[in-house]
């Protein structure tokens, strides 16, 4: 009997189910929502990166039309201890909030803020990481000896000896400028404190309502069960909307103070100066190899400028830590030395953004191995074939401490080589070089930590839950209602959950509704970050639906007097497993289960609502992997880089929905290409942002981007029943590695190398101007 579920269950290519609504203009994003008596917040921010408040006069401003009140650090900060919140006397970065204006409309709040009279005295500024650690640098935080926030070193094997014994040593200094996550919908929330019963509801464009429930409860001293955080439709997250921004907390405090709903939606110009930013790292790295092609050692020394403060919850050492623990993970080598430092500078806080440090690891590993392979006269693919960790060596722990269990480097590479027709492209590249056309091929191999478990955050004491949950209810009509603790900012995670439930219950996704995004309705959980939704929330859904299936079959067995082990579910029916014939419909099971329990045996226990939570107590992550290739052309006269082709092969374990997974990869890939070629927050030497508009901060648009060929290798995670790993960040990580290597491959015959991201035309031309005409470079 053909199963209807086969068309919509696990493995089906179903578009994100919310799209029909969203593409008709029927979405309900945060700024589309209005509540009665709602005020609008606007923040007056520091115009200087580092400054002392000299005087302020808000008399005139507070009398402006529509203004309900003006709040300062004096009112706000004591209500959200211990949060480092609104600037009182000193601003540590430009745009630090100083006053909150609440008015009947955003326009009136902005107008009123114009009338404020405020005088700042600029203070000495720390603008970049090397200035921050230089002797005599101004110290940003009183009471600290210097600006060093974090310093971590690790060593495995004998790196000094291994480098000394290497036949070839390649050393590079890489620079990654600051970036924005640049969700098309900026940040926003509506805080609604009800003074009558002391309850707080926050409609929050946030990836983790549970995280924010805990933060609002603990920081504002509201009992946790009276706090509800609900995420509406969200216009992209990418990690930005996982952060804890102080203006958002202040908005919630304002609602408590005014006893009215307060909306705060960041506009784009404000987003540039107030959003958590990402990257801003300088990395020295080197690799040692034997003449025969094996890697003897790798080394990385990273320093990141994390902003004026640490980002609450996750601080901001994660990018550097991820870079040092992941570097070289796909490759066989024993000796490793790594250091990462985080330093304070008078810039925006660094926060979470797709990829978190893993692109650095990918770029370091892929650039160094590609340069080494060339130096050794070995083709880069052949070098990878020799040096990747083979399946036979698994499980293993890398020198960076990463446990690899179900990775598939060789399979992914061979698939990629076939997809892109590698040998033919190399031949084309050689021929065109003869005609003065400079094309490059780059391959980016990566591991990706996905779906963190409790060993990752737990020991730090952070209240970050890595579990997820699922509640299922058979409705009387035989359809299924699912509540998940997950959130969905566009990934399609809730669609994947519906597919898993439909598959297990032998029904169509059309019979399964899924609600998430709400801290009050489902079992406790995490939400969306670190490529976790389907891997963890999907596993919870699988477990819950397995229990519901057993309960349905047991009830059907009681109704039909058939042993339950002879029954199963398909096409919305309870069927006889042997004959495939329908025994009773789910609708009939539902009707009797809810309305005619009088017809059941006296002690029969009907349970048609079930719950399951899932967390892997002992697993810090599910390690996914993949490889990407880029084919680029560099115009040596103008410095422009054109993407001619992009191929991605990913292994995220079991693929629940190939369409959604492909599109995650494509979207991530384009963000990765944007990072390498365009995206940069340009700061002046005194730490002022110079390009805070979308006209000046370049992001990838359709015309510059290539078509992207996507393929998958499926090596299931073995510790879960579902077998899925994460995919959300893979595209970005692999693309960045591939483009870095490809551009440098194109520049190679010109004796040039580019190591300062983004690779703007100006930097390409600078690299060409610095080029050493003789090739190859001197051997050690």
């Amino acid at each position, binding site marked *: 009997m053909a199963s209807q579920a086969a068309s919509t269950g696990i493995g089906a290519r179903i*578009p*994100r189910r919310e*799209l*029909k609504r*969203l*593409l*008709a*203009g*029927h*979405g*309900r*994003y945060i*700024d*589309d929502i209005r509540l009665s008596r709602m005020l609008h917040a606007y923040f007056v921010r520091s115009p200087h990166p580092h400054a002392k408040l000299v005087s302020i006069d808000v008399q*005139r401003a507070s*009398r*402006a*039309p529509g*203004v309900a009140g003006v709040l300062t650090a004096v009112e706000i900060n004591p209500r959200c201890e211990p949060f480092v919140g609104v600037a009182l006397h000193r601003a540590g970065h430009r745009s630090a909030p100083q006053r909150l204006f609440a008015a009947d409309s955003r326009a009136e709040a902005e*107008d009123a803020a114009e*009338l404020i009279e405020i005088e700042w005295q600029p203070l000495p500024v720390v603008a970049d990481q090397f200035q921050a650690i230089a002797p005599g640098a101004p110290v940003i935080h009183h009471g600290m000896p210097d600006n060093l926030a974090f310093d971590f070193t690790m060593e495995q094997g004998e790196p000094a000896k291994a480098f000394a014994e290497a036949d070839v040593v390649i050393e590079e200094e890489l620079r990654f400028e600051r970036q924005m996550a*640049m*969700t*098309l*919908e*900026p940040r926003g929330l509506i805080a609604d404190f009800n003074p009558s019963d002391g309850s707080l509801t926050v409609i929050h464009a946030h990836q983790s309502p549970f995280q924010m429930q805990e933060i609002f409860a603990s920081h504002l001293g509201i009992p946790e069960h009276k706090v509800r955080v609900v995420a509406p*439709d*969200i*216009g*992209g*997250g*990418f990690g930005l909307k996982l952060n804890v921004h102080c203006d958002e907390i202040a908005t919630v405090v304002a609602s408590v103070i005014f006893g009215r709903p307060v909306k705060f939606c960041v*506009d*784009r*110009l404000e987003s540039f100066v107030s959003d958590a930013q990402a990257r801003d790292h300088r990395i020295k790295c080197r690799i040692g190899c034997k003449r025969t092609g094996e890697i003897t050692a790798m080394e990385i020394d990273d320093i990141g400028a994390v902003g004026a403060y640490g980002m609450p919850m996750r601080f901001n050492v994660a990018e550097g830590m991820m870079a040092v623990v992941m570097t070289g993970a796909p490759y066989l080598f024993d000796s490793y030395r790594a250091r990462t430092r985080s330093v304070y500078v008078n810039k925006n806080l660094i926060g979470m953004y797709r990829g978190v440090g893993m692109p650095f690891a990918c770029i370091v590993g892929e650039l160094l191995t590609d340069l080494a392979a060339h130096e050794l006269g070995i083709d880069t693919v052949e070098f990878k074939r020799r040096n990747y960790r083979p399946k036979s060596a698994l499980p293993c722990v890398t020198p960076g401490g990463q446990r690899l269990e179900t990775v598939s480097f060789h399979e992914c590479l061979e698939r990629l080589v076939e997809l892109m027709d590698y040998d033919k492209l190399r031949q084309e590249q050689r021929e065109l070089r003869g005609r003065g056309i400079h094309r490059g091929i780059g391959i980016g191999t990566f591991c990706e930590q996905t779906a963190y478990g409790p060993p990752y955050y737990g020991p730090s004491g952070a209240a970050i839950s890595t579990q997820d949950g699922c509640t299922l209810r058979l409705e009387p009509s035989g359809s299924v209602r699912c509540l998940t603790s997950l959130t969905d*900012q*566009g*990934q*399609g995670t809730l669609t994947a959950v519906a597919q898993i439930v439909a598959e297990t219950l032998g029904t169509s996704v059309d019979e399964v509704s899924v609600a998430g995004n709400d801290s009050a309705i489902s079992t406790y959980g995490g939400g969306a970050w670190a490529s976790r939704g389907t891997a963890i929330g999907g596993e919870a859904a699988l477990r819950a639906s397995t229990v519901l299936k057993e309960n349905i079959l047991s009830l059907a067995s009681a109704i039909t007097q058939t042993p339950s082990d002879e029954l199963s579910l398909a096409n919305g029916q309870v069927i006889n497993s042997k004959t495939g014939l329908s025994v009773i419909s789910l609708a009939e099971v539902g009707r009797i289960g809810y309305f005619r329990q009088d017809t059941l045996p006296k002690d029969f226990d009907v349970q048609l609502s079930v719950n399951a939570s899932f967390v892997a107590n002992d697993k810090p992550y599910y390690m996914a992997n993949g490889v990407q290739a880029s084919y680029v052309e560099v115009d040596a006269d103008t410095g422009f880089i054109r993407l001619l082709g992009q191929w991605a092969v990913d292994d995220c374990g079991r693929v629940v929905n190939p*369409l*959604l997974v492909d*599109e995650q990869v*494509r*979207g*991530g*890939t*384009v*963000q990765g290409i944007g990072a390498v070629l365009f995206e940069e927050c340009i700061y002046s030497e005194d730490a002022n942002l110079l390009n805070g*508009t*979308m*006209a000046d901060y370049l*992001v990838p*648009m*359709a*015309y*510059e*981007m290539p*078509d*992207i060929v996507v393929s998958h290798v499926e090596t299931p995670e073995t510790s879960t029943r579902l077998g899925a790993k994460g995919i959300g960040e893979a*595209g970005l990580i692999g693309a960045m590695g591939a483009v870095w290597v490809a551009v440098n491959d194109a520049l190679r015959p010109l004796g040039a190398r580019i190591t300062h991201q983004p690779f703007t035309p100006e930097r390409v031309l600078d690299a060409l101007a610095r080029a050493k005409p003789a090739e190859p470079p001197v051997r050690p």
Partner: protein
Amino acid sequence: MGDVELIGDEEVEVVATLNGKPLKRRAKARQHLADFLRQELELTGTHLGCEHGICGACTVLIDGRTARGCLTLTAQISGKSVETIEGLSDNGRLAELQQEFIARNAAQCGFCSSGMLLTAYELVQGGEKLSRSEIREHISGNMCRCTGYHAIVDAIEAVLAKGSR
């Protein structure tokens, strides 16, 4: 009320056609069209991504041509016909594009989609046979941060192919 006077709040009368129906309203002189649609008429399908004319999320049709809702003052639509995502969805003229976009998951968060669909609609109305590169060029005033554009180009290509059959 306060004793502070602010400029820009004077009202102008706007007489236009909106989604095929006559519109007669007073609007603040300084209010741009996207804010007018969203705040005064509750047509929230038109989104704001930058409010300085770059991202294309606020794209609407004015007399059949795409325009930035954030760069158009409400007062400027007098005597013109404005169409938004709501109108073009309700009258079915976007149906084919919406179907092809959805089939390919050519949207994720959906925030750019109203503008992207209207830009695509203008293109397919032309009925010309276009290369992928030409399609990409036409939609390069609309930022999508989620999809990577490939599926969007596929969807528009599919609609164009149907038209030329």
